[in-house]
């Protein structure tokens, strides 16, 4: 949680900028700090049609001590007004500071909702969508700031019946639209849960409900049945684990290091030798290790493995590919050297490192049940003028993730990517002012994200409990309009 002047005094310049652009003032997003309540407010859990996942969803919420204010007796019936007077009001702090939701509470006594979770996984016909509408719509008026809407569906591609597939695919359209409708930092996301998911649902549900997903909005996450390792302590899911983070000296990389260390991991902080002073500082702050390696060196993978073999019983649990560069130029002006350096560092090095670290015979390589998370980019999805080389590398990362995930699934290894949108870092400084301001505003949350938002999403994908999530690209973009 960032501590801003606006916490103390109403922000004048912020108001002015927003006023000049005719845009609503962006909400202050609630971000995760250890020990905070999961939600600001109570939760409503509802189901449409059979809603087979309701018990599990309820159990997850109960385990996090979230007050449940849904009408539990009629899970399949949408109740226009779910509020009841006997519910416990939000146990959390009343507000994360900043402006409250756009619409006032309809009645003084009705509690604000921190989350609405709807199990629509059994929806198979158009009429089920009306039940969904009836269940969801009334709740939207009563959301707390930074509230969470999570729909749970069934992957449409798993359904043979056209009506059923259409119904499920409709959820995608609903969630993307609702996300755009929400205000006050609230988000809406959809989980397509494969058949018989078991506890695989818990990890994405926890993440999307929590403040860790502050800048993940309007996204669809697929979770498949998997052999899930639930942590003994959800606040320290990486206790005893070893993670390598490339590009760790600065920016998003340094933030990733901090989040993994906070959540219990030993972090091997990797960057080029020239970044050594900052790298040592980052490593020392989290009692991690600094490893100065140029990832484009031919023996980079072996050096990482040798380090892990020497220091950590040869067990590497998580590999985070964050290192990347930009050499922005129109393609027409790009020469082979610039082209090659971007693709070499952002993509070629990752491919080579993965090949080495995934060798099951190599001591110090990625362990069974390990995790690979790569940093892609919205540029890799939507493209960006002057960034052909960068977009090539970042789109390439997505291709790599999808192919690799299938290849290593039998070893319990997952491979995923995050695609950051507009994140406020030193790299965004190079974007021209108008583009920059546009990039910051053309998303549903009306603001840029923070490096920590990317880091939290990576950490979630790297959890043992996220075993059911693989081969995916999770956008951390506040539901940017780009490439959507």
């Amino acid at each position, binding site marked *: *949680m*960032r*501590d*801003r*002047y606006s916490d*103390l*005094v109403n922000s*004048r*310049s912020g108001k*002015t*900028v927003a*006023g*000049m652009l005719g845009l609503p003032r962006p909400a202050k997003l609630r971000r995760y700090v250890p020990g905070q309540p999961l939600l600001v407010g109570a939760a409503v859990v509802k189901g449409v049609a059979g809603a087979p996942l309701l018990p599990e969803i309820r159990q997850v919420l109960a385990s996090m001590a979230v007050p449940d204010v849904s009408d539990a007796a009629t899970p399949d019936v949408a109740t226009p007004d779910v509020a009841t007077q006997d519910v416990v009001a939000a146990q959390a702090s009343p507000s994360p500071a900043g402006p409250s939701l756009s619409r006032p509470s309809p009645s003084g006594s009705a509690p604000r909702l921190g989350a609405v979770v709807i199990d629509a996984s059994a929806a198979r016909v158009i009429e089920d969508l009306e039940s969904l509408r009836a269940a969801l719509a009334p709740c939207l008026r009563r959301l707390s700031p930074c509230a969470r809407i999570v729909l749970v569906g069934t992957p449409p591609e798993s359904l043979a019946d056209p009506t059923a597939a259409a119904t499920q695919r409709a959820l995608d359209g609903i969630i993307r639209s609702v996300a755009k409708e929400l205000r006050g930092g609230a988000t809406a996301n959809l989980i397509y849960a494969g058949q018989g998911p078991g506890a695989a649902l818990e990890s994405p549900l926890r993440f999307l409900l929590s403040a860790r997903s502050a800048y993940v909005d309007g996204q669809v996450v697929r979770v498949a049945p998997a052999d899930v390792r639930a942590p003994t302590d959800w606040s320290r899911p990486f206790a005893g684990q070893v993670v390598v983070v490339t590009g760790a000296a600065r920016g998003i990389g*340094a933030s990733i290091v*901090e989040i993994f260390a906070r959540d219990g991991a030993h972090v091997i902080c990797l960057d080029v030798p020239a970044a050594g*002073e*900052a790298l040592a*500082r*980052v490593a020392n*702050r989290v009692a991690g290790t600094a490893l100065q390696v140029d990832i484009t060196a031919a023996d980079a993978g072996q050096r990482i493995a040798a380090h892990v073999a020497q220091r950590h019983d040869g067990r590497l649990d998580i590999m985070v590919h964050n290192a990347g560069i930009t050499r922005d130029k129109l393609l027409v002006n790009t020469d082979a050297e610039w082209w090659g350096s971007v693709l070499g560092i952002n993509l070629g090095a990752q491919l080579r490192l993965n090949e080495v670290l995934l060798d099951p015979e190599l001591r110090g390589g990625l362990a069974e049940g390990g995790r690979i998370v790569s940093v892609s980019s919205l540029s890799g999805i939507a493209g960006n003028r002057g960034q052909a080389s960068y977009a090539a590398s970042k789109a390439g990362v997505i291709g790599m993730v999808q192919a690799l995930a299938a290849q290593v699934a039998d070893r319990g290894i997952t491979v995923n990517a995050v695609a950051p949108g507009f994140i*406020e*870092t*030193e*790299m*965004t*400084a*190079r974007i021209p002012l108008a583009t*920059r301001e546009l990039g*910051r505003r053309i998303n549903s949350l009306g603001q*840029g994200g923070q490096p920590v938002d990317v880091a939290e999403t990576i950490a979630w994908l790297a959890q043992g409990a996220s075993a059911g999530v693989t081969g995916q690209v999770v956008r951390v973009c506040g539901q940017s309009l780009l490439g959507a």
Partner: protein
Amino acid sequence: MADSLGGAPEVNSPAARPSADPDANANRNANRNANADGVAGSEVGTGPTIITLDALPNLGVLFARAAATSIGRGGALGDVEVRRPDVRVERTRLAAYDKVCGFALRDELPATYLHVLIFPLQVVLMVDRRFPLGLPGLVHVRNRIVAHRPVDADEVLSLSSSARALRPHPKGSQVDLVGEVRVGEELVWEGISTYLARGASAPGEVGPETHPGVELAADAIPTAVWHVPADMGRRYASVSGDVNPMHLSSLVAKAFGFPRALVHGMWTKAHALAALEPRLPAAYVVDVAFSQPLLLPAITNLVVLQRDQGWDFVVRPARAAGDHLRGTVRAI
């Protein structure tokens, strides 16, 4: 009260005039017009007037001008923002600052060094006629720094400063001078300097003022004893550029009612922070309230107590009652 802004006795030469955005000349005229009739500039519509500095202003000259124009100020806060883009840290200046304040020389900037970079912007803001309080006699009573992340000496910084929250105080009125440092668009540092103008009036009711919650017993055992030499004000002035004469000379200090010259409050804060330096987290808030001025030379005690998320600390006279400074460091 340790840090007070005073005026110099005479005007030397024209100040390094701030040029303005977007067109330097046009805005300079606009500023002049604004100065002439005492009305806030309105050339940017409803937004603030933005003064952009290309170079460091001469603070000695600005102090002098502030003294000359301090009469007849009042009214509401002007909507002015001072900016200085593309600031690069000079490592030799940083090294000199580190030495005077007691920091080890490394690429990472002390959080208080960014205040040194911001401070000239604050002065430009306060010298501007739209600033309702006279600069001489303004007392720095509180300084709160939010270090969002470590900043390195090789990063290019954009600085901005504005005045906010003019409010009444039982002894006069208070105002916050807020500074922001960005690398590109990323907000990496914020500083809030609260100044008290004794006897000045501000609209509104006297509200509650918060203070850093420091819990340290009056008889706590000191962590360190500082022998602060008589020239510390001059030494800090030379590395910070804050050449407010009451830190340089006993005579001027006497004119303001102090028996001797006093050291800058921000030196005291920096020196206390330096004592914690190797243990500071990556992101933190360091918040201090200044009380008694630290008159030079002095022997003072630093008392530090570790808390869950950081430290509480007090700088107090070694052989007298009261405190010079009370502060907290908290991880964020």
